[in-house]
């Protein structure tokens, strides 16, 4: 799933590791989310959106083609 995690992270000058530490996941998880290899759970998506101060829909781009 396409998302703007990397955009918001870089706006705040955070590394993947730092962002992972803030939301309680590993650097590998953040990298996988940013590259679209991994779709986070609803709670992790919520934590990320709350951290960036945006809605989940603003952070993750829901498209019908991505529906599993």
């Amino acid at each position, binding site marked *: 799933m396409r998302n703007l995690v990397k955009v918001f992270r870089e706006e705040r000058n955070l590394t993947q*590791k730092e962002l*992972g*530490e*803030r*939301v*309680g*996941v*590993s650097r*590998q*998880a953040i990298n*996988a*989310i940013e590259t679209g290899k*991994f779709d*986070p*759970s609803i709670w*992790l998506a919520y*934590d990320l959106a*709350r*951290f960036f101060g945006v809605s989940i829909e603003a952070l993750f781009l829901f498209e019908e083609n991505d529906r599993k």
Partner: protein
Amino acid sequence: MIRLLRYPAINGIFISLFSAFYSLIFFITAGHIEFQRILYYTSSTLKPKPFWSNWAAFLHAGNQKYIGAAIIILTLLIIVFLIKQHRPYDEYQVKILANCFMTAGFITICAVALLFFYILSEHVGTVEKMTLFIIVHWISVLIADLVFVLYCHKKKKISLRYT
């Protein structure tokens, strides 16, 4: 079930139990006369394939104890890194671990079917064949698990959850 995979201790207990079981068998059977008797390809009246006769000779000499030792060493390495993993795996790591188990399960199912077919094709030397299968299978599991724990190994302290 998936929730159990979050805890490195579960991984450690699972690996330790089976490693202890296999290494104990290898240590007990090494040089044990009853085990040597049930080996088929060590019979001098036979003309088996070189691979199986060499493998049977390896087992007959009791060298499987070194394989048992290698299993213990690999398991201890895994446990050391698991102990250093201070927090549960996150959902991404659990997904990788679950996928690893599914892949291993699928490969095992296929390997068992192939082994069954092979034994039916040549029904003798079952002990040698099963022993080789178990060794290759379990060493592969340990190496894969070691790669996983190294991949997840972290040096930082417990992270602060954003509030």
